[in-house]
């Protein structure tokens, strides 16, 4: 295939060049990129970009520039900004593109705005009306774009203006819109919690949404709310346990499977939330023991993602009110991680031990030899994690050895940040 196809591929753009402006348009970007890759010095690159930027400046100020050309200029502007050069003269045009253009212009305009501007930027106020309009659009794509922008960069003070429209989207027939609306509201909660207090009831509705995707998104909010104050949400435990049971039992549609594991990211999210709810609360913990046992049992396959679930299970078991059989199983799991030749698992095993050691120092002592070996590991991250662990299992017997090893490490360590962090925790 090689000869014929390569020739065709390179010839095609040229064939159409004279007929339409579109190929010509993308060629300018290609030209810029090609020229940059051919340059060797930073100085040359600066000069080239400066030239490019002044050409772009002329283009954006000219009344003859079409929307399509403006789109192309915007992509070049994003490219220059990515390399670290200022193209702030394009910011206002990005907003104009989103305001005045068709769907394609909006897409570029919104993307440029979310890359260039920050929440507090004064220009953002000009975007608010456009966003309001698009949120109400019957065009699914426009509404999606508006929701995306609202979740990425939106002025805090204007949230009340847009809130009812976003709230409204929670009952939209299309699943993707409901899902994006949930995440947008979560963002609002993070930056202005008082503004969204009155709609917490709607979050519950999202949690019970018939579509698992929407339900999963609502868990982001609940994880945050429950982290802030678990007591208000204990009543959710029953429903969350049921959901987890159904997921683990394979009741979700097969589209949610990832490498034969049912909705792993959802399982991880649920396990985290449950561990927060069960902490220091025997009666709530009681509700979870079964499903934790089941999860530990099911996550036996050999894939990264099942290890991720196992890790969360283990953490949950150690966070909530203790139950002997579960602790035993979890301890075995951690042992497997720490002894695993797979380095990512070793790392997680060490992390788990560090977490667990507050509850059960014996587990760490059981694996003492492996831990000491890890100190001399080639991987810097493993070494560091081992040190963190060692802090916590220091006792009268092993303190000398451990401090010696630590000093060795600190001598060999070049990273200032690590040194400061470790010395302070010590």
């Amino acid at each position, binding site marked *: *295939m*090689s000869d014929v196809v*390569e020739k065709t591929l390179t010839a095609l753009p040229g064939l*159409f060049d004279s007929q339409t402006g579109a190929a010509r348009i993308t060629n300018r970007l290609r030209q810029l990129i090609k020229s940059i890759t051919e340059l060797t010095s930073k100085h040359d690159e600066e000069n080239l970009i400066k030239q490019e930027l002044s050409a772009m400046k002329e283009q954006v100020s000219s009344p003859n520039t079409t929307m399509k050309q403006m789109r192309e200029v915007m992509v070049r502007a994003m490219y220059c900004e990515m390399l670290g050069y200022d193209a702030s003269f394009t910011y206002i045009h990005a907003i104009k593109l989103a305001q005045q253009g068709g769907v394609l212009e909006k897409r570029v305009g919104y993307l440029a705005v979310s890359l260039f501007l920050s929440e507090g930027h004064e220009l953002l106020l000009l975007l608010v009306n456009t966003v309001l309009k698009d949120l109400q659009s019957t065009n699914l*794509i426009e509404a999606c774009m508006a929701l995306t922008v609202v979740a990425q960069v939106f002025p805090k003070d204007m949230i009340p203006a847009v809130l009812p429209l976003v709230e409204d989207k929670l009952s939209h027939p299309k699943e993707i819109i409901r899902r994006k609306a949930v995440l947008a509201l979560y*963002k609002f909660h993070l930056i202005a919690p008082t503004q969204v207090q009155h709609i917490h009831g709607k979050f519950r509705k999202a949690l019970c949404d018939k579509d698992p995707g929407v339900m999963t998104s609502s868990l982001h909010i609940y994880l945050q709310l429950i982290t802030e104050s678990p007591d208000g949400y204990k009543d959710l435990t029953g429903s969350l346990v049921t959901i987890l049971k159904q997921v683990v039992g394979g009741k979700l549609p097969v589209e949610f499977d990832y490498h034969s594991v049912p909705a792993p990211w959802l399982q991880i999210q649920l396990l985290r939330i449950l561990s927060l709810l069960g902490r220091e609360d025997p009666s709530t913990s009681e509700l979870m023991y079964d499903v934790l046992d089941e999860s530990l049992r099911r996550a036996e396959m050999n894939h*990264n993602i099942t290890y991720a679930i196992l890790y969360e299970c283990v953490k949950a078991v150690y966070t909530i009110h203790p139950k002997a059989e579960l602790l035993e199983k979890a301890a075995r799991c951690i042992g497997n991680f720490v002894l695993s030749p797979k380095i990512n698992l070793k790392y*997680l095993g060490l992390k788990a031990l560090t977490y667990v050691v507050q509850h059960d120092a014996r587990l760490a002592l059981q694996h003492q030899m492996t831990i000491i070996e890890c100190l001399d590991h080639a991987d810097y991250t493993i070494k560091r994690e081992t040190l963190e662990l060692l802090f916590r299992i220091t006792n009268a017997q092993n303190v000398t050895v451990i401090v010696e090893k630590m000093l060795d490490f600190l001598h060999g360590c070049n990273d200032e940040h690590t040194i400061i962090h470790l010395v302070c925790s010590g």
Partner: protein
Amino acid sequence: MIKAILIFNNHGKPRLIRFYQYFAEDMQQQIIRETFHLVSKRDDNVCNFLEGGSLIGGSDYKLIYRHYATLYFVFCVDSSESELGILDLIQVFVETLDKCFENVCELDLIFHMDKVHYILQEVVMGGMVLETNMNEIVAQVELQNRMEKSEGGLSGAPARAVSAVKNMNLPEIPRNINIGDINIKVPSLSPF
């Protein structure tokens, strides 16, 4: 929450940069340089996790990265994210890119940076994971592509022709992710 997603090549040249928390322009460049510095000294057989480095926020933040041939995909996340979960998310993202670009390589990221952003927006929104199923992500992207095609008319023809040629029924197209170097790698097959 995800604080930033950085894709750069083996020389530290940025290919896609997305911050979900505001940093001034020069700070962004410093973070890119620091992250590249941290990640490039790692061997290939160490774990995929790193402390976040002082610029990007210190001890609560981790760098989770994957190295594919000439590109590093780095996600900077806080402690609320599962490390292995994010590692697999990076894989999902790359597989999606592979599906959308048909055997994606560094060139595609360079020349279609905006398209990569649109795809990424369907995976991570505002620092939160939106969708983890590759087919769903591709479906959303396809929806947007259709509006491009309908605008195209004649000007859409070169793009369609090129993709038609690329889509010719050729045996033995390697299906593994082949993020190769700058030259367009075309599998050598028997002549027509």
